Structure formats: structure tokens, C-alpha cells
């Protein structure tokens, strides 16, 4: 008997504080009068580690915000864990963040397969899953997934832009496509085909895919040239984009070359491929490229460089991911400021869905962030640009996928 009572007492001892603390914490977990805890996963190791710098630059930006007094008097405690771009690991890490570390919300988790793995869990747990770092289309579905929100323009949107450009400007277009054989590549292809409509079957003469494990894509380029295509829709990551641009040039193929935004960096892709070979490439942009000389005297870019030097000196100032991370961190800071004193999960989500015409320093001039309770795609504008051998020359109007 004595023993049972002891156990019961012990149970009360253990559970008591939890029961008392429970309801108070449930109101706004991860938030104290002086701090807000934000969770994140990034691939700091493994095959996708090139993206890891995004997590690091965000942490550096939050450090700057904290040094300047935080947001409404609260400092940001940014907990970022390594998931190695492996979905099962992402699940493990995110559960740890939510259940053990008790973060207020999850922000900028990186990758399409990784975010897919935690999509349902976070929505069931009603934890905001904000500004995910992937261009897939499925993140903007407030009806079914009211706790998840994307950030960047989707790959399909970009596909629409190219399709419209081709339809308007290239009579007798014959389109050859090279794409990565996964969700990212297929989303881009779908966007193009959807916007071409019925003409797609007639206009697309050849589709070639590659696997990330392929050493080269030479064979595909030879086939595309041979197909007689005069438009080349190049949906490749930087490593293969460099090869594709160079190889097409080397074998004397000069189509209208549409290069996806993923690989539009001047220093990372175009310079290694050769500036001459890269001339007349067309892409769609929404961020300022840190290696493009036209932004050298831009105030936003100068601030960014000062920030990089002070808070993330080991980071690469040629890497567009560091511009991306800085900008999305600024977007979140805007949301948190807008939340005022109420940092409950509901209010964070409400404010994230209530961004009006937010201009950020490293978005292209004229491009603004907009969300609403029915619009969970923050950035939906892009502008076409043509490479003149030195820089991306913007042309045409800003395309807005939100206005359709």
C-alpha cells in the first residue's frame, strides 16, 4: 500500500508542474516576455549541402536583429538543425523542435521532399510552417493546409512566363526541353506546357531528362540540337546548366536559350560557362544577383555587403543563396513586427497571410510581397532579363501570376 502511494506521489510530483504549466504554455508556446523561439531544418551535410548557407545567413540576420534590440523587445532564438536533405531525418528534427524544444513555429525548412514529409504533421499540430524554401506549387493551399505557406515564385509560374514570351515573340517555335528528372524539373515543364495550352504538342519537338547522378549531359544536348529545336528550355541546376551552356555553344547550336532562375547566377554559372557562350540567354528574375555589376551601387546591395562582412564573414558574397536567405529573414521580421504583442500561433499565421505590398531591399525594383487569407504565395512576380555578356538586362513588364 505504501508503495502505491509513493508511486502516486511521484506521479503527481512529475506531472504536477506539467499540468500547471500546460495551459499557460499552450497559449503561445516558444514565446516568453524576452524571447521567441523559431525552428528550422537545413541540409548542413550531405549532397544538398550547398543550400546550407541559407540557414546560416538567416541565423546571422537574426543575430543582427537581436543586436539591434530584437522585435518589439523580444530576441529571436533561432534553432536550426541539420537534416542532411533526408525526409525521415526532417521528420525527426521537426518533431523534436515542436515537441521538445517547443518552438513557436517552423520557418524556412528547406527542400521539396523534406517539406512534404512534415506537411501533414505540422498542419495537424497547428504549428505555422512558414515561408518554406522550395518552389513547388503545393505550398499555397490555405484551404487544405492552412498552416503552411510558401515564399518564392513557384517553378510553374516561371514556366508560364517563358511560355508567354515564346508565344508572343517566336513565330514557328520549335521547343527542345532539358529537365532534371524529379519534382522540380517536372514542375517547370508542367508550367510551360500549361501556358502553351493546346499548342504544346505541336511546339515541343523533344524532351530530354537527366538524373542528378549523370556525370555529363552532352548526349542530351546533341539530341536536342539534332531535333531542330530553335528554342531551348533549360531546366537544370547550376552544375548542369554550366555544362549545357558550354556544350550547346561548343557544338554550334544557337537557339533562343531560356535558362531557369535556379541557375541564373552570373558568377556561379555564366562565368564558368563562358561569357561569350552565355550571351543572349534569357531568364526570369525576382532577386538582385549579387554578382551582377548593375547593382554595385545599389543601396540595398551595399547594406547587404556590410551585413555579410560583419555577421557572416565566412559566407560567400557571390552566392545568391545568401541574398535569398537575407531577404526571407527580412520577410519574417516584417511579419513578427506586424504581430505586435500577440505572438500566438494563430496570430502569426494571420499576419503572415496579411502582407500588403511589402518591398524588400534585394527584391527587384517593383516586385512586392503580397499575401491574403486566400493567397498563400508571397512572391508571385518576376521579370524577364537578357544577358548582354556582362549583366542581366531587365526588359518587358513585371509579370504577375497573382493577377489572372
Amino acid at each position, binding site marked *: 500500500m505504501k508503495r502505491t502511494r509513493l508511486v502516486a506521489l511521484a506521479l503527481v510530483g512529475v506531472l504536477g508542474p506539467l499540468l500547471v504549466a500546460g495551459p499557460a504554455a499552450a497559449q503561445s508556446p516558444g514565446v516568453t516576455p524576452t524571447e521567441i523561439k523559431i525552428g528550422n531544418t537545413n541540409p548542413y*551535410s550531405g*549532397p544538398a*549541402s*550547398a543550400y*546550407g548557407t541559407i540557414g546560416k545567413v538567416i541565423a546571422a540576420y537574426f543575430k543582427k536583429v537581436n543586436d539591434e534590440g530584437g522585435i518589439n523587445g523580444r530576441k529571436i532564438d533561432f534553432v536550426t538543425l541539420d537534416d542532411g536533405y533526408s525526409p525521415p531525418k526532417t521528420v525527426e528534427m521537426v518533431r523534436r523542435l515542436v515537441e521538445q524544444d517547443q518552438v513557436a513555429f517552423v520557418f524556412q525548412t528547406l527542400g521539396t521532399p523534406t517539406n512534404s514529409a512534415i506537411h501533414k504533421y505540422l498542419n495537424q499540430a497547428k504549428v505555422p510552417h512558414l515561408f518554406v524554401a522550395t518552389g513547388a506549387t503545393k505550398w499555397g493551399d490555405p484551404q487544405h493546409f492552412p498552416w503552411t505557406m510558401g515564399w518564392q515564385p513557384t517553378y510553374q509560374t516561371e514556366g508560364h512566363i517563358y511560355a508567354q514570351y515564346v508565344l508572343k515573340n517566336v513565330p514557328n517555335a520549335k521547343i527542345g526541353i532539358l529537365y532534371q*528528372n524529379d519534382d522540380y524539373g517536372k514542375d517547370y515543364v508542367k508550367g510551360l506546357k500549361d501556358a502553351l495550352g493546346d499548342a504544346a504538342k505541336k511546339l515541343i519537338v523533344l524532351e*530530354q*531528362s*537527366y*538524373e*542528378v*547522378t*549523370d*556525370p*555529363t549531359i*552532352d*548526349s*542530351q544536348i*546533341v*539530341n536536342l540540337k*539534332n531535333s531542330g529545336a530553335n528554342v531551348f528550355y533549360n531546366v537544370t541546376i*547550376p*552544375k548542369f546548366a*554550366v*555544362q549545357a551552356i558550354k556544350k550547346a555553344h*561548343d*557544338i*554550334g547550336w544557337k537557339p533562343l536559350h531560356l535558362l531557369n532562375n535556379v541557375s541564373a547566377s552570373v558568377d*556561379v554559372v555564366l*562565368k*564558368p560557362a563562358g561569357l561569350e557562350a552565355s550571351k543572349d540567354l534569357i531568364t526570369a528574375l525576382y532577386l538582385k544577383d549579387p554578382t551582377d555589376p548593375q547593382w554595385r551601387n545599389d543601396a540595398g546591395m551595399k547594406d547587404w555587403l556590410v551585413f555579410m562582412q560583419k555577421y557572416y564573414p565566412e559566407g*560567400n558574397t*557571390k*552566392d545568391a543563396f545568401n541574398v535569398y536567405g537575407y531577404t526571407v529573414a527580412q520577410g519574417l521580421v516584417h511579419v513578427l513586427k506586424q504581430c505586435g504583442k500577440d505572438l500566438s500561433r494563430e496570430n502569426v499565421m494571420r499576419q503572415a497571410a496579411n502582407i500588403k505590398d511589402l518591398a524588400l531591399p534585394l527584391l527587384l525594383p517593383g516586385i512586392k510581397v503580397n499575401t491574403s487569407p486566400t493567397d498563400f504565395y508571397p512572391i508571385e512576380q518576376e521579370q524577364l532579363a537578357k544577358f548582354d555578356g556582362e549583366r542581366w538586362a531587365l526588359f518587358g513588364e513585371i509579370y504577375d501570376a497573382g493577377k489572372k
Partner: protein
Amino acid sequence: MEIFVQQVVSGLATGGIYGSVALALVMIYQATDVVNFAQGEMAMFSTYLAWSMLNAGVPYWAAFFATLAVAFVGGLAIERVVIRPVENAPVLTIVIVCIGLLVILNSVAGWLYSYIQKPFPSPFPAKPFKIGDIFFGAHDLGALGVTLLVLVVLYVFFRYTTLGLAMRAAAQNPVSSRLCGIRVGWMLALGWGFAALVGAVAGMMIAPIVFLDPNMMSGILIYAFASATLGGFTSPGGAVLGGLIVGVTENLVGTYVRFIGTELKLTVALAMILIVLLVRPSGLFGRVAVHRV
């Protein structure tokens, strides 16, 4: 016809890449009886060293040979420090050590040099030349030439020099070799050194084509294994030829066989490994392995 020839030419170019890495794999297998899964990453790392030197203003050939020297010493050191303690352990242990080495080298390269790909210069002219309607990359041809040169040097070395013969003996029959006065331990270390050197040559020839990044070798290594298996792990010439066959086959199959297309190219390479292992485990040109039990 034009497309066929162009695909063959481009297949030979990529096949040359596979062959050069396969050669390094065969080299270490012959010299130490180990299949080195870290071979690709060792080559990648050596190439980064060359890149650092070139960036510091060292002329190409000076950097090239300096890299070979460093790679040789590095390979030697790896054997002494990492492999020697597990020398007599089961094969699986050595495989795991090699894979550990692979991950470590990959991560250290990423940490030191970042994951952004870098252009790597070629010693050959940049401009491709044209015969009829077919384009030949000058670097592709040059790299293939270098691979063949390495092959000849290896052949002569293993066949006609005392050191080469001693190394082969040490790998195949350590006990008898030791009785003949060969320092088996050092022979194995030299084997790693030379394999690292051959790998460094391959890395510096491959980087101008696929561009330099820490994951440069991950895909290539799979194809190199296919090449070495096809040609035979005991035959350097077979490995290079195996590489060319794999390169051309995957291009032609990808182009002409509809249901395979470009999506199943890698599968073709893996299927080749499987078929060879089932039908002729010693490869096309390899010796049948005989072990006394």
C-alpha cells in the same frame, strides 16, 4: 548518321572519363587487393589542391606535377594512418573505412572550398574543331590521350620494373613475398600512393568537363565501377576499354532505345555490372581469380 557519329564521339569523351577513374580503381586493386570506394573523393580533393595552386598563380604544368607529388604522399599517408590498422580485418571493415574516408574527404572539401562549382582550366585548346559535321572537343581528345598514356606507363611499370613486380607480388601473395625479402607493408602503401596519383591525373582531366565541386565524382564513380567490372578488375587496359564501352553504350541506348531513353541511363550502367558479375565475374579481360583455401 550524323547524330549517330556525334553520339559515339560524345560517348567516347564521357567514356574516357569513366575509364580514367576506373584505371585508378584497378591500380589500387592490383596493388593492394582492396576496392577503394574513396577513390573518387581522393581524386576530387587532389584536384582542389591543383585549383588552389593555379589560383595562387602557379603555372599549369608546375601545379599539375606538384599535385601529383602531393597526391602520392597523401595516398601513402592515408594507407599508413587509416588503412594499416585494419589491414588484416575482414573485407567489410575495409569497405566501411573507405566509405568513411569518402564522406570525410567530401565534407572537408565542402567546408574548405564551399559547394559552388568552379571552372578548372584545361591544358588543351578551348576551341572545338569540326570534321565534316561532327564536333570534336579538343580537351576530350587530349584527356583521352592522357588516360592512354597513363595506361602505357602503368603497364610498363607493373610488367618490367622490379618495384612494379614486387608490388604485384605483395598484393597477391604477401607471405611468399615477405619470404623473398619484399617489404609488403610498404608495397601496399606505395600502391595507395600510386593510385592516388593516377586518380589525381583523372581528376584534373575530368574537372574541365564537369566543373569542380565536392560532389563532382559521386556519379562518375558508379560508372567507373561499371567500367572496371566490365573490363575486369585485374586489367588496366580492360578498365579503360570498359569505360569507353560504357560511355558509348549509354549514349546510344539512351538515344535509340525508346523505353530506356535518358531516364534509365544510369540503370544501364548498373545492369551492366550485374550482368558481368553473373555471366563473367572476372570481366572481359580480367584473370579468373584463384585463391587457395
